[in-house]
């Protein structure tokens, strides 16, 4: 699960579709059943962060030296999308480009009131697994 927004009564969950890509699904529980209302497709598995204050989900898109941080605003998403029979395919909105010298397979993102931090995530080579 990427995030839970109890105001909009939605969850965003991710499903790995290939070793380095995933689909993000927006599920609403405003209805009696859990309803799939929207999707972000083929998102690279590079890192994400949900900011409760702005109700935005941040994630990294692009490849190689052309990566960028995108976001999806969940504020009012239930009203925007409703509960259609066919879930909407959504696109993230580009926010900033990741500098070329910050090449990594995984990033750590943090957002706070118009300030965004993009960091490389550690890889613990000596550890066989992480919990």
């Amino acid at each position, binding site marked *: *699960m990427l995030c*839970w927004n*109890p*105001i909009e009564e939605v*969850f965003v*969950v991710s*499903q790995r579709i290939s070793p380095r890509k995933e689909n993000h*699904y927006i*599920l609403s*529980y405003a209805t009696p059943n*859990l309803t*799939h209302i929207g999707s972000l497709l083929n998102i690279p598995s590079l890192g994400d962060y949900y900011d*409760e*204050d702005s109700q935005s989900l941040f994630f990294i898109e692009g490849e190689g030296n052309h990566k960028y941080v995108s976001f999806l605003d969940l504020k009012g998403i239930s009203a925007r999308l409703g509960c259609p029979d066919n879930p909407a395919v959504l696109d993230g909105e580009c*926010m*900033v*480009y*990741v*500098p070329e010298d*910050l090449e990594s397979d995984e990033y*750590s993102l*943090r957002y*706070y*009131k*118009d*300030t*965004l*931090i*993009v*960091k*490389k995530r*550690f*890889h*613990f080579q000596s*550890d066989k*697994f*992480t*919990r």
Partner: protein
Amino acid sequence: MQPSEFRTEFHITPQVNNERAKCDGFIFTNLKDGKPIRMSYHIRNTVGMIINAVPDPDTHLLVALSREGGNVLGFNIFSMTYQFRLVKRAFTQLQCNSINSRHILRFYGKKQKLIYYHESHANIEIRNSFSLKRLSSFGLTEICKEVGLSATFSDLRISIDLDYIPHLSSMILLLGSKIVLVSEKKTNQKPSVIFSIKGDEAYHSITYKEKRKVLLVEGMFSMMLLGLDNMGISQLRILKSNL
């Protein structure tokens, strides 16, 4: 007396840990022009490897747990209003600080509470989020004993999850299939099981949202939403998806 000569295979050559050197990042303070600022060098070198960070929008602070060595863990408080300047730090000694260890960090700025759990000592600590001083400590062994889960303690110490419920001044613990309420004041009521999960689903995470007074328990195939009032659980929904 001649110093004894060790065979070459017993010679130990310590290597400089280069984990910190891998830490690199940028801050974007002006998202309109998208110009990045490289994270300053001193931040990277005074704080160990950050393994968990929890921001609090109410107090504009960010608490980060850092691995300072094999037996030392650091609590670091950063001010989010001054480009993440380090304002306070404290250290704690652990028997084993393996990166695989289960650790939990929860931050409630409004109540100046920092809740921290580490598998190696199996204690839940409540600290003051400004001074970082330890206010109280709860042994998971005793909690398990109180609620009749002693037999599964070794599993629970690595699978535990918890959150804090401000209006009940209590912590909520997910211990296997039991949801346990633990008052933050030891003199008050003893830990009690407020909900027992039935079925085969293994739930692994518990989150409380204060604004809606809703508890979310996540499992592999389903999720549970529990409404809380001053008496306890007021409503329950089990959510499953066909995806």
